[in-house]
């Protein structure tokens, strides 16, 4: 059995989600007989890792620092094995703009978009280009921060007048903002778990909010606020196509062991669009990735066991 340090919490806005994910991971690891050290990630991370001297670090962090390659880079430097995707995959996946550019270049359908940082507006007069963007994307437009998870900071602009306030809101979360065509339809999540080194799509989860029109932060993390359908009720060809797209994105970004890909199935056209890939999907009791594993007959403890085993250095 291994010494596992579970990295959780941190300073990101998704701290509470990460604490929940981490607590469940700790339980599972203890159940599996591993020796667990929980680390709430802060200024003393390096010292605490040195003291714990784990065989492997389980990265149960979400959002900036934990999911964008920062912590992974640090673990590389320290020579500590860790779970999930490597630095470069995390860096690309956590930045929605980079990921979407990669997808578009590879012919993977993703909603049309434009992205700007604050400087473009402040120094280069990008505001004057907004009408062009708006006519290219058509209203409604989704405005979201490039690097924030859990639907934080996402706004919908229905008319040109809504766009400036939506941009101001999105810039609250980061320096880069994405304007994206809004796809009306069904929220699908395809989880990928490597089996014998081969990325395999798990049954698809559809999230249907019970009340909110939009799958927002609260409906993501409160039991009973969202109805999950797994496997999602889809035409076999659609499910197959969604799984194929998700696997392609996973490979394109160079992910390892596990990830979750979010897609939209457009209501009017039946087309699938890839929104983003989460290199460290939520592991809370309402999270989609564990549900998908469960539907594939992989219980939570087994799931966590597989993720850790994949990260452990070969004996």
């Amino acid at each position: 059995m291994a010494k596992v340090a579970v990295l959780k919490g941190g300073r990101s806005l998704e701290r509470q989600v990460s604490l929940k994910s981490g607590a469940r991971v700790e339980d599972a690891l203890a159940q599996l007989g591993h020796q667990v050290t929980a680390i709430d990630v802060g200024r003393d991370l390096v010292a605490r890792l040195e003291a714990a001297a784990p065989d492997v670090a389980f990265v149960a962090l979400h959002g900036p620092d934990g999911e964008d390659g920062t912590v992974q880079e640090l673990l590389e430097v320290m020579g500590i094995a860790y779970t999930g995707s490597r630095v470069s995959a995390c860096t690309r996946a956590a930045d929605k703009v980079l990921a979407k550019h990669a997808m578009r270049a590879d012919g993977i359908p993703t909603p049309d978009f434009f992205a700007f940082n604050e400087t473009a507006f402040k120094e280069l007069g990008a505001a004057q280009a907004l009408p062009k963007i708006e006519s290219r994307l058509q209203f409604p437009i989704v405005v979201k921060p490039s690097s924030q998870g859990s639907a934080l900071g996402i706004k919908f602009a229905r008319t040109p007048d809504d766009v400036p306030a939506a941009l101001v809101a999105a810039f609250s979360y980061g320096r880069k903002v994405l304007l994206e065509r809004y796809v009306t339809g069904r929220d699908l999540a395809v989880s990928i778990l490597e089996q014998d080194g081969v990325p395999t799509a798990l049954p698809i989860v559809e999230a249907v909010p019970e009340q909110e029109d939009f799958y927002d932060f609260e409906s993501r993390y409160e039991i009973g606020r969202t109805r999950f359908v797994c496997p999602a009720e889809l035409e076999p060809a659609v499910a197959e196509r969604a799984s194929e797209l998700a696997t392609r994105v996973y490979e394109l970004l160079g992910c390892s062991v596990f990830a979750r890909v979010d897609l939209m199935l457009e209501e009017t056209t039946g087309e699938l669009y890839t929104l983003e890939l989460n290199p460290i999907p939520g592991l809370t009791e309402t999270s989609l990735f564990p549900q998908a594993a469960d539907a594939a007959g992989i219980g939570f403890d087994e799931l966590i066991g597989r993720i850790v085993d994949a990260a452990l250095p070969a004996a």
Partner: protein
Amino acid sequence: MSSKHPRSTVRDIERYAALFADRTKVMKSSAMRDLMALTERDDVISLAGGLPDTTTFPPDSYASLMGTVAAQSCARALQYGPTEGLQVVKHCIVDVMAAENMTVETDELLVTTGGQQVIDLVCKTLLDPGDVVVTEAPTYPGAVPTFCAYQADVVQVTLDRDGLRTDELEETLDRLEREGRRPKFIYTVPNFHNPAGVTLSLARRHELVRIASERELLVLEDNPYGLLRYEGEPLPTLYSLDQEFVIYAGTFSKILSPGVRLGWAVAPAPVLAKMNIGKQASDLCSSSISQYFVGAYFNAPQPPSWEDYVRSLIDIYRRRRDVMLDALAEHFPREADWTHPEGGLFIWATLPDYIDTTDLLARALQDHVAFVPGRAAYVDGRGGSSMRLNFSGVGEDAIREGVRRIGEVVREQVALYGTLTGTPGAGTPRGAEGRWLVGAPTAPSADPPVDEELAKVLRLPRKRAG
């Protein structure tokens, strides 16, 4: 090794969710609770809490009072007590109410577990699912989850610098009557409103009890801050104007300690009797230890008296309020407005409608400062551009620095909006005391209604396929 059963995620969700009552679908914890959790980090200056400053209470006094409880009432303090509360604490409550010119008998009191329990018990006693509760807009954020838990239909009436707008209240009640919806009670915080900081004027106090009496509606008067007045003359409580239709909620939380979790209710006898039964079901009785502690505190032979302690709090909080008002004038842009509270713990600031304070909080947390986004004080998504700032919980330097940091991010957003819309010159500090706001009838805004504009940005109806 854990001895817990192995977990299955899907089963976890289904087996619990299937058991949840319908009311849990409308039960909400405070908005953006995860963001709020971050405000508790050590490195954050939090102007978000509603905390009184308990550091001013001398540890020696605490130890001595607990010693008195142990010496005089040990067995009784460790025992259950009567649901309505112990006489020893009821006499203290009589004194506190007398300090606000109210006369009550001890048998007219129900001692509760904090003022919050009064709200809960009133809802439990009066509300069936779908019943209407009328309250101020904005309202006390902590009351919203209680109203929701009882599946109340909450109708909010605007307040301005003089508190709840009684003209709008009458219009609202007329409309509800036409629609066949009769409210059960009106919930109000007349003194130094949480979150708005405003105080109900004398004329409107008379109006409110007249309206309640004429229509035979109950008013729940929540008065946690009445004794914390920093300027102006005290106004009569609603309860002192009308005992027939007013339920009064008091608390020791702001004049002594929220940690003792003791409040009280005074209500018309039939209502109080039902609330007593409701309390039996909730917790049998409030903490006997706390009640003896408060009794010992009020009856301590040596000074300072409880009134002395309240006076010392008033001195501290008045200074902190003034520091916050000065800092707002110095650091907030001229596009912002804020209230000037004559007492209590809070200032309510309202920013231009294109700034969403929930998102702004995310930005402010990067600069290690926090406040409560205004949306928490509404049930209908309004309040998106307002924020509640607390000045009692942290020291003067922290208030100055906290407001400076918030002002900086606000000005940054105002400037960005100016850039995006071609409105130059936005975001300069106001440099003078802010206008009174919260829908002040004397200063109508030329801007479009905040809520309609924001609503478009916040939510888009989504049709579901299949």
